[in-house]
């Protein structure tokens, strides 16, 4: 499903964000990417949805070599991937419902299908009754749940999360992670870059650790640090 072969990424000619990373993630896996800030976790995530392309090596996602993917193929590729960020990236002038339906509108889904799937997704994250609320009327945890609903509304093959709980308290974080786990139960491959030590330790999923752009650990049922 996701395959990194000796991948390097150099920014501005000198800053090495990734250095010879090889990694394989199967369909249906739940993977934590851990490591200090600047270790390359975000770059790893960005490469999976082709926000970044490798300076060296190859990245295969959903059976495609991303370096060879044409520009106009990228939107269709991204429709199969949901992404969640630390800062939620919701549109301030759209309410909860519109923020989620937006992801389907850009793909030209029918109004009826949109209504069905948006209410399903909002229901999944437990915010159907808050659908009229605008982002500034929602708590951080609620905003992130809307973002997750937006990521899941298209039933993506892959769900990526870059520090999804970086701005949230531990209890809310736990709720967010249980949503990610739920998505994983439905068969979505989940990759989460995180600093949430306790949660990683509790959930005992596969853990890959990066240090200065190098993959230093890849452990089934791992802990945050060894």
């Amino acid at each position, binding site marked *: 499903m996701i395959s990194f072969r000796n991948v390097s990424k150099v920014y501005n000619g000198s800053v090495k964000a990734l250095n010879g990373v090889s990694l394989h993630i199967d369909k249906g896996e739940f993977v934590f990417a851990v490591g200090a800030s600047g270790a390359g976790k975000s770059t790893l995530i960005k490469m999976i949805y082709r926000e970044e392309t490798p300076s060296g090596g190859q990245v295969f996602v959903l059976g495609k070599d991303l370096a060879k993917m044409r520009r106009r193929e990228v939107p*269709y590729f991204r429709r199969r991937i949901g992404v969640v960020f630390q800062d939620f990236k919701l549109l301030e002038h759209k309410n909860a419902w519109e923020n989620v339906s937006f992801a389907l509108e850009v*793909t030209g889904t029918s109004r009826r299908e949109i209504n069905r799937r948006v209410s399903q997704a909002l229901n999944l994250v437990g915010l159907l009754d808050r659908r009229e609320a605008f982002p500034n009327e929602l708590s951080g945890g609620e905003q992130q749940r809307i973002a997750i609903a937006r990521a899941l509304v298209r039933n993506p093959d892959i769900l990526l999360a870059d520090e999804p709980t970086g701005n949230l308290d531990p209890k809310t974080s736990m709720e967010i992670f249980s949503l990610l786990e739920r998505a994983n139960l439905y068969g979505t491959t989940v990759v989460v870059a995180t600093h949430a030590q306790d949660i990683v330790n509790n959930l005992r999923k596969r853990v890959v650790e990066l240090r200065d752009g190098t993959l230093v650990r890849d452990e089934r049922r791992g802990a945050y640090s060894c």
Partner: protein
Amino acid sequence: MFSQTFRSLWRNKLSSFLSSLTTGFALFLLGTSFLVSINLGYMYQMAESQMEIQAYMNKEASDAELAAAVTQIRDMPGVSEVKFVSKEAALEELKDMFKDKASVLDSLEEDSPLPPSVRVNTTGAEQIPVVVEALKSIDVINDVIYQEEVSERLAQIGKAVQYLSLGGMLIVGIVAVMVIANSIRLAIDARRQEIGIMKLVGATDGFVLMPFLLEGVFLGLLGSALGTGFAVGVYNWVAGKIAEFIPFMPIVGLETQSIQEMFGIMALTGVIVGLTGSAFSVRRHLRV
């Protein structure tokens, strides 16, 4: 999608307004030069239909003097036909030509402001310059006008007007494209975050840029409406003034087909200017 376009236009009211105004100005120049050349063409046609030399005589000359001059002209070599037109006859002719505007001429009833003239036909076109020279040497003749000269002059004026307005149009047109491009850039900047998220969730480039192209087209159309309105206003005003002061000057009415076509061309040009401006901006500022 349309509502998005209008919201964005409204958000950048000032720059939208300025872009339309600049486009309007460019199209105003286009329209005006159109109108002027249409009129020059019309005048040219009118002049061409008169295959004769007109010699205007001194208004103060006595009838005897005029009669002597006419005889003299008749005897000139190369002259085939001479027709004398008295002051009064000239006025009658004028009135006849502008029946519908007779009221304008009523005040001239008493004393014709027009000079008496002779219309001279030559035995051949090559005789024209010779006859013209001979006519000029006659005392009571003040001015000699013949078709060739008129048409030459009109052609010269027409060319000058066309070059001048083409140059002006080009400059203002480029400015209009740039101003629209800038307006679209502002719109793109205002929606950077939204564009980023759209791309993130898999919106195609076409889907993302369509509202901006629409916005440009709309600005261009608005500009062409402004320019056309302004050109029509000025034209009507000038035409009115001309009809008042130089009533015998032929003016093409706004309802003529060529002018109707011009409006279509103006609108099309507006769309092209708008599209060019926004495409320019979208290409530069909307890269993934």
